[in-house]
Structure formats: C-alpha cells, structure tokens
C-alpha cells in the first residue's frame, strides 16, 4: 500500500479498532442473493466477490438493481434469500451487531446525505466519537486531515447547505473515511452533481483506489471505471449479465446485452 501523494493514510491499517487480521479471503462475498420489491424481482441470484484492495465498478441501465445491490451490502436494503459476507462474517439481522458491521462499511450516497444540522467537521467527527468512542481532539485532528485531503479543510465550520454539491460529496467521503472502513460503497456518487463538479469527486475516488481502498462503485462514469477499476460488473434486469476487466468490457464485451448498452452510451 503506497501513498503516492504523501498525505495522511485514508485506508485500513490506520490504527482503527479492527479486530481482524487483514488478508485471507475476499472482503465481500455475495452469494445467491434474491430480493423482491413486491411483485418486482430486483435481485436475481446475484453472486459477486470483492477482494481486498479491489475496485469493482457496477454499471448498467437504470432499474437494473445496481443501487439495490450496493445498499444491500450494508443492509440498508434487507435481502429475501442468499448470504452476504463482509470480511468472512454474515450480515447480522438487526441491532448492535449490524451497527458495528456498518461502521466498518463506508457508504457514499447519490444525494450526499450530510447531517443538515451539523457543521462539516461535526459530520466527520460524529461517527468516530459516538461509534468508535474516540476522543474529540483525536477525532478532530483526523477529520481535519481527511478534509484537507479531499480539499475542503477551509469549509470545516460551515453547514452542508453552504457548500456546493461537489464539496458536499467530498465531505461525505471524508465522513465515511473517518470510520476507517474496510470497504467503501459508492451509490452513484456523481449522479446528482453539476458536470463541472464531477471531476473533483472522481479525483478523490481515484486517489482512494490508488491507495488500496476496497471499493464497490455504482456509477455511470465510464472514464472512472477504465481508470480505477479492476473489475466491471454489468447488471441488467436484476441479474449480473457480465463480469469482466475494464479493458475487455469496454472494447470487447462478451454479452450482447452489454454491447447494446455500451453502444447506446458511447455513441454520442
């Protein structure tokens, strides 16, 4: 794990309270997962493995189940059947165990979801203080390092509504990182942003990927997928249609469904 920019380490091994040894087996395993929204079968026998340090990009048409899959990995969406293992442990059903698991799984949302009544700094320190039981001074120091790393240290005392979308999303990434998560989930992190703000968020994410963070990214940003991902998962109609390397996928997709999708988005 190298940190080419010499900034503070963003990824695991930062002294967080992780009991488990790193290494040994994949970090996220999704096995035969099924989910329905009423009549709608949104996840059909999904299988997916995410290795440590791997960046997996999930792409596909709207309504294909990408976000649902992403959200089910930290159980924001409960699943009907199948198993999801994070770091070798099955997702707990509810309560404190689930909260503990979620603390190890960072999540970045399409709509940022920063706590509207708290400053940026308070947003970033809340989890470390209340969940990790870290001291305030230590948490604030780490938070400022993270905010500096994502380029918004000078916004720390402002409220979310005072920031641009791109700044809010970078703050949200810093909030997740402050928990020193084992894996980060990104649910369309740039879809709600103005075009000129997309890159500032993607740059932060590319930096994270380079530092060895394990990431599952649902996105429509093909450039990011090519640049940062080790694996592309193409989902449509609730199924994983194709799993491939980015180079192979974008130049020579195996399935017709993926070819069709790519022809629609790459021709304009």
């Amino acid at each position, binding site marked *: 794990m190298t940190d080419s920019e010499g900034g503070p380490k963003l990824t695991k091994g930062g002294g967080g309270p992780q009991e488990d040894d790193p290494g040994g087996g994949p970090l996220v395993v999704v096995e035969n997962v099924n989910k329905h929204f009423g009549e709608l079968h949104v996840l059909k026998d999904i299988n997916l493995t995410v290795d440590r340090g791997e960046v997996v990009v999930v792409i596909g048409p709207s309504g294909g189940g990408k976000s649902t899959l992403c959200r089910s990995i*930290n159980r*924001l969406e409960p699943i009907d059947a199948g198993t999801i293992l994070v770091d070798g442990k099955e997702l707990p059903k*509810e*309560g*404190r165990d689930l*909260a*503990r*698991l*979620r*603390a*190890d*799984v*960072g*999540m970045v*949302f399409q*709509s*940022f*979801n*920063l*706590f*509207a*009544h708290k400053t940026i700094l308070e947003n970033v320190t*809340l*989890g470390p203080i*209340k*969940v990790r039981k870290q001291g305030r001074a230590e948490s604030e120091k780490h938070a400022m390092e993270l905010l500096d790393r994502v380029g918004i240290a000078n916004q720390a005392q402002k*409220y979310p*509504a*005072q920031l641009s979308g791109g700044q809010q999303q970078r703050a*949200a990434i810093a*909030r*997740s990182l402050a*928990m020193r998560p084992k894996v980060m989930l990104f649910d369309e992190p740039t879809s709600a942003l103005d075009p000129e703000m997309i890159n500032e968020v993607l740059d932060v994410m590319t930096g994270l990927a380079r530092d060895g963070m394990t990431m599952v990214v649902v996105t429509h940003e093909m450039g990011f997928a090519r640049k940062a991902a080790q694996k592309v998962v193409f989902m449509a109609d609730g199924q994983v249609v194709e799993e491939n390397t980015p180079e192979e996928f974008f130049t020579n997709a195996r399935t017709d469904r993926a070819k069709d999708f790519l022809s629609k988005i790459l021709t304009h």
Partner: protein
Amino acid sequence: MPPGTVGMAPTRWNAMDDLFNFGPFFDNFDQILEGFWATVRLSAAAAVLSLIIGIVLVGFRVAPIPVLRNVGTVYVNILRNTPLTLILLMCSLGLNDILSLKFSNVSATSYYWWAVLGLSAYTGAFVCEALRSGINTVPLGQAEAARSIGLTFVQSLRMIILPQAFRAVIAPLGSIFIAMIKNTTVAAAASYAEIALIMKTLLDDPSFTSGAIPLFIGVAVGFMILTLPTGFFFGWLAKRMAVAR
C-alpha cells in the same frame, strides 16, 4: 319627558360604573397574583414533563419493534381523545382521593403533582404527534447516513432525526404550549388552586357585588402576559433554528 326615563339614568350609570370598577380586582390583587404564580408553576412543570413524555412516546411510535409502536399508538389515541377535565378529575378524585395515591401528605402539594402529571400526560400526546410530523419532514437519507456510519437506532434518533424534527415543528410546539398554559384552568376542577379557581372563589364570595367584568378582563390580560411572549419566543426560535437544506 316620559315617566320612567328618570329611573333609567341611575341604572345605566350603575352598569357603567360596574363595567369600569376595577376596585375589586385590585383589592384582591395579592390573591390574583398568587393564583397566576400557581398557574406559572403548573405550566412550567407540565411543559418540561410533557416534552419528555412526548419525546419518549415518539420514540415508541417510530421504533422498529411493533409492540412499542402499538403502545405508543394506543397511548396517543386514548389521551388525545379524552377530555382534559376527565383526565384531571381521574387524577385528583380517582387516584389521589379514592385510591389514596398521594405524592405528599400536604394535600395541596399532592394535588399539584397530580395536576402536573395529568396535564403532562395529556399534552405529551400532542407533543408526540407534532414531533412525529416533524420526523416526516426529515429526509430518509439522513437516517440512512446515520445508520451507515454505525449509529444505533436510538443514537440516530437522538442525534440526527429528533434534533432536525424538533426544528421543523417549533412553531406548532409553541401552539401546543400556549394551549397547555390555558388548559391549566381546567386544573381548578382537580382541586388545584390556580388562577381560575381563585377567580371563581372571588366571584362566589357574597361580598363580591360588582366588578366581575373587570376581573375577567384582568385575568384574560394576565393570561396574555404569559402566552403572548411564549408565542413570540417560539416564533423567534423557529426562525433561528431552521435547518437549511
């Protein structure tokens, strides 16, 4: 000049005299002040307690455990739909007098706490419902973000959801508290000597022959002195605490 009009003049004069006769009001000013002080004490204690009851209840009503949700729903629907007079009489006559569940050997103290409890139990149901509508104004993403950093249900309710819900319903909470201050007059029925009971005692006194209307006006103004600032305060607070999204 027709006969009879001569007799009218003094009558009319007496009526006007009575209308503006603030004498009895000021003669009994000490008692009236004491009555208002009792109202203030009842209001303040009930405001605090009803807020606590309302917060706990709303926690029940949005809890992931169905039993708690049902308890909250049943409580709110019973208390909100029972006349306050009935609740306070139940507390004072039923629980304090008949069942002898007393807070204190001093009967005035015991009646006071029963009045606080009854009024709070009733107002708490309204506070709960106001807060619940406030929770509905908080975007779902806030709760999801709270859960995703590992906060438990109670933590996210306490630190993320309720603080924002509160800010959204400060103005309606103000209305609830204004209604509650005026509802303290019902505690007269529960043997608690607040201003309404003092007023009634004064009016029932055989020596009290004129000045009833000034007394009403005086008491009404007294209530406005309590409720108007309450309204202004909550209005100011609502503006100040508004959450920008």
